[in-house]
């Protein structure tokens, strides 16, 4: 659906996007992650022909961008860096104007299209108030309605749930999953890891303009081959599991083992009490934090070797196999053992 080859964008002396090979396949729910200032928005803008790449090639749905972007844009719905509308017009009038501004779609069916888009995002009952009186969440929903207006095959959404409350976020997530089920490819950027975790099937992680991870989420989050065990009989467990024990922290043991069921049977057979036994899985947060350096919004004093850069001095090349530096996931993402 979207392929870029070594796309680079330079703003003056700043290298915003650096040799990125983005690969979004038809039917994906693709999440683009990365710290603030890592080039997510610039990359999305280049896909839409708003920003022109310094070098590299972009192809969206078979059309080279920006050369033939006008051909592919009618099939794309986009929300880029926050919604926008004419504050002195109502939401409905805004959508009607946007609909009329471009090609395709008749005047007679415009009203129906606008109503349908508003209903999809939960603004069906919106009145004639001008947009300037809308709340942040309503504006966000209106922006989404604008993206959905043309029933696009591809949705490119930059931070789609900004300004929404938890219920609103879930609504939009369900909507995106439903649209994806009907064949819409979704590419979204976010720095809310939980949102991407719950929604996306594939992710790409940008760091200072470079793509540092790009893979299926299921592959990235595959079990690490280790098991976390909580037991009140930690001393005896240590003795029993000698050799496979990687780390002990009070009652909590980290064990190298591919088969939690067999391990459990062994522990119980030895008369040990097992409070909790789970496969270790890597959280998205660990993945992203390991692969990236602090965002551009953090400004540290230049100090040799200190501060900001220690984190990402060695971004793992193949994080799905690399050992995590953190001893265990901090999020409750562990899968209970059978």
């Amino acid at each position, binding site marked *: 659906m979207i392929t870029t080859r070594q796309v680079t964008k330079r*703003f003056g002396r700043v290298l915003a996007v650096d040799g990125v090979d983005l690969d979004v396949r038809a039917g994906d729910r693709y999440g683009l992650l990365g710290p603030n200032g890592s080039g997510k928005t610039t990359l999305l*803008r280049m896909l*839409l*022909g*708003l*920003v*022109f790449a310094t070098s590299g090639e972009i192809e969206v749905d078979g059309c080279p961008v920006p050369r033939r*972007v*006008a051909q592919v*844009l*009618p099939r*794309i719905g*986009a929300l*880029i*860096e*926050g*919604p*926008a*509308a*004419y*504050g*002195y*017009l109502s939401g409905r*009038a805004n959508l009607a*104007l*946007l609909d*009329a*501004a*471009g*090609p395709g779609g008749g005047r007679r069916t415009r009203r129906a299209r606008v109503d349908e888009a508003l209903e999809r995002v939960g603004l069906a009952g919106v009145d004639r108030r001008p947009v300037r009186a809308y709340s942040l969440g309503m504006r966000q929903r209106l922006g989404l309605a*604008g993206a959905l207006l043309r029933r696009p095959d591809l949705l490119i959404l930059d931070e789609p749930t900004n300004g929404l409350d938890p219920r609103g976020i879930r609504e939009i997530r369900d909507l995106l999953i439903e649209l994806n089920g009907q064949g819409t490819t979704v590419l979204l950027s976010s720095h809310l890891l939980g949102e991407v975790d719950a929604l996306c099937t594939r992710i790409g992680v940008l760091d200072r303009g470079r793509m540092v991870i790009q893979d299926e989420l299921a592959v990235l989050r595959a079990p690490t081959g280790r098991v976390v065990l909580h037991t009140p009989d930690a001393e005896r467990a240590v003795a029993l599991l000698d050799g496979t024990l990687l780390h002990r922290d009070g009652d909590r043991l980290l064990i190298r083992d591919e088969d939690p069921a067999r391990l459990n049977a062994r522990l119980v057979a030895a008369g040990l009490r097992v409070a909790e036994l789970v496969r270790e899985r890597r959280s998205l947060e660990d993945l992203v934090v390991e692969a990236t350096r602090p965002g551009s919004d953090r400004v540290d004093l230049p100090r040799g070797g200190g501060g900001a850069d220690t984190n990402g001095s060695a971004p793992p090349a193949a994080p799905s196999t690399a050992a995590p530096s953190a001893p265990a996931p901090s999020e409750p993402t562990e899968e209970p053992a059978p």
Partner: protein
Amino acid sequence: MIHVELLRLARRPRTWMILTMLCGLPILVAVFVAVSNLVPAPGQGPAFLSAVLSDGSLYPAAGLALVLPVFLPVSVAVLSGDGVAGEAATGMLRYLLVRPVRRTRLLVAKLIGTMSFVLVAVILVAITSYITGVLAFGSSRTPPVSSTPSSGAISSAVTGTSVGTVSTSLSGTPLPAGQLILRVAYGIGYISVSMLGVAAIALFLSTFTDSALGAALGALAALVTSEVLATLDAAGGVRPYLPTNYWLAWIDLFRQPILWHNVQRGLAIQAVYALVFLGAAWANFSTKDVTG
């Protein structure tokens, strides 16, 4: 995109506020003149104003002369400067471009929008001024108080203005009512076209910034420069090429016969400014990264 732009302008409260103010200025002046019965002596002050006391139906010409030098170009600069920069500031520019609206078409739509506004503004000023004039000063046509036909009054009014180089033989030559309407229409058209240069300059600047105010100020700076150079003898060489130089040539349309020379030069100058700055705007905008 063009009809969307026109619709948007028509539904924007600010458009109507500017139109109200444009129409309000001649009304305000009419009230002062009617109450005090004081008008500038012929040859001084705004064109035509000295003649309105004797014939209120001349007031449309006076009204246009009042708004033309400052008020109208300022509103054009504000509106046209808002063109691309205003859309960029609200963020609508990116949504229009991915809708998709071609960048060239967007520029043309913006220029057409501004020029349509000018045309409507000039027509409204003429109509409200006519009504104001007839109400405040009466029309010499209806009561046969004055023996001078109104068209004669127009000619004498023209001779009275500072621009007046009309030969005295034209003074008092009667104009049929049909001719008068035709010439007012010519005048409206010419004044509208006179704003093309300002609109193109403001639109050009508008493609460089996300600040509508900055673009409008830039266009106004160009106008002020032009007006200053026009009064400077040392700059006499460039005077014929200044965008404001032929603005008052519409007065020639009320002479008998019409003096076309300056009108034609004025139209040509505006066309050149429009082409050059629209081309420059296109060159900049079509290769510009839209980050706003």
